[in-house]
């Protein structure tokens, strides 16, 4: 058995030194104070005020992050669930190709996709023209007649980047539903709606939990979409942490905010995976 541990050793060393210890190290760091205004060196001093200050200043930003993440995930789900059903039940032998088409956009850097959205949503861009042509300018989606640098742009960008992470776990869950079950339901005179409500929906619930998780947590911690599609009023929590750490050199407050974000994400994981094991997540 000793050589099982030899095989594990290098990987475990990596996980311990680069993941576990630095993550635990955030706790004392979040209670420290900076030594100077010009460096990242700190001194431990039980400064709980880092949390109070952080939540006071960045509470609204945190709230906004989860609002944007929740909104984009909800919007994405409205698109992803029907798409996953279409792939599973109408895709036939083209299912692998359709799944590939869902994955393909993720192979382009999300910064390049943000550049694409900048062109599309810009002041002379086609989306703004379409919104005007359809007479949708008064729905509160624009700010000063612009789309770029608005919450709309950020939520749209987030929805687009997170969509594959919603579709894939749903397709996997739907593929596990045996056709026989649906045929049996049909034999028992269940119409399409009852077949969906009584068979498809309950059996897709585990996939739904994974999908929500894979979309919500990265979206809440996203940096790129708020930074490049939003204005100063659309910054999210990860932008605040990056700014505190890299610009203001306030490592302890950054660590405090990061731990709060991690705790909130942990609560989301726990709530969504209460019924399944960690394997639900590992599958993805």
């Amino acid at each position, binding site marked *: 058995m000793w050589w*099982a541990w030899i*095989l594990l050793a*290098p*990987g475990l060393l*990596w*996980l311990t030194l*680069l*993941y*576990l210890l630095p*993550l635990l190290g955030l706790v004392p*760091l979040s209670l420290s104070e900076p030594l100077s205004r010009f460096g*990242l*060196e700190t001194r431990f001093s039980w400064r709980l005020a880092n949390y109070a200050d952080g939540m006071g200043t960045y509470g609204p930003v945190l709230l906004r992050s989860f609002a944007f993440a929740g909104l984009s995930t909800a919007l994405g789900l409205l*698109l*992803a669930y*029907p*798409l996953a059903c279409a792939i599973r039940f*109408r895709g036939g*032998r083209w*299912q*692998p190709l359709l799944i*590939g088409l869902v*994955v*393909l*956009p*993720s192979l*382009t*850097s*999300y*910064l*390049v996709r*943000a*550049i694409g*959205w*900048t*062109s*599309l949503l*810009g002041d002379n861009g086609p989306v703004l023209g379409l919104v005007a042509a359809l007479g949708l300018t008064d729905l509160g989606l624009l700010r000063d007649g612009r789309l770029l640098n608005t919450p709309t742009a950020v939520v749209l960008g987030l929805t*687009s980047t997170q*969509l594959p992470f919603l579709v894939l776990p749903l397709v996997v869950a739907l593929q596990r539903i*045996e056709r026989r079950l649906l045929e049996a339901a049909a034999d028992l005179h269940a119409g*399409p709606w009852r077949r969906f409500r009584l068979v498809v929906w309950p059996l897709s619930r585990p996939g739904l939990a994974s999908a929500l998780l894979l979309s919500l947590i*990265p979206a809440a911690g996203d*940096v*790129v979409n708020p930074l490049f599609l939003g204005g100063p009023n659309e910054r999210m929590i*990860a932008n605040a*942490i*990056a700014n505190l*750490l*890299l610009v203001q050199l306030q*490592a302890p407050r*950054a*660590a405090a905010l*990061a*731990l709060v974000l*991690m705790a909130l*994400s942990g609560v989301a994981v726990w709530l969504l995976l209460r019924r399944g094991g*960690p394997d639900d997540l*590992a*599958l993805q």
Partner: protein
Amino acid sequence: MRGVGSWLLALVSALAFALLYAPIVVMVLFSFNAPRGRFNLVWQGFTLANWRQPFADGALTQAFLTSLALALAAAALAVLLGGLMALSLERLRPRGSRAIALLLALPLTNPEIVLATSLLSLFVDLNLPRGPLTLLLSHSLFCLSYAALTLKARLAGFDPSLELAAQDLGATPLAAFRRVTLPLLVPGLLAASLLSFSLSFDDYVISSFTAGETVTLPLYLAGAFQREISPQIQVLSTLVLLVSGGLLVLATPLGPSGRRPD
């Protein structure tokens, strides 16, 4: 009723694909744009000039090569460490396997910014100057979980009796592993490498914390929003998409010969 449902399903699916592909279409289109000024963001007119000089933007090309090298090294390291872990966890099952599998899955539940913060504070504490080394360390770390879990899932899907049969026929355990398990593992190794490579190649958040003066492609692109968006950005990105899309097609089982989900 069934007709309306089908129509709605098709409409929503089309909308979803539109949202996925809108920025991609723009990227390909704008690689043929002749921009006025420094920002290739507004359509001016068609040209092939950018495609004749895909490497005209020297700083972009340099960042591209840096990311290529980094992603190759990080993927190799992650697949090596992760593969050994997966083998041990699936085949030898030492005590505590479940706890270790959980530890592997844990980083996947953390927002990237949390990992970035903890890695930067570690490198500051160790007085390790930020640069290629810290980039490689942090990239190999976040790829490790994906590589190990992908390979572990592949190994779990194997029939262990194949290896036992080889041993019954006189092969030593090591020979059985080399002649039976390893060849079967090749698709899994390929998948884990591709996944790790693309995760590292695309990483922005963790790199922005641990890169120091080193400029990877995503870091260059982030700077481009303030500095200059040259059409070469769209040309190179289209090339990357063509290559990675080709690899994806090769890796995808198509048509009736593929595994039927039912």
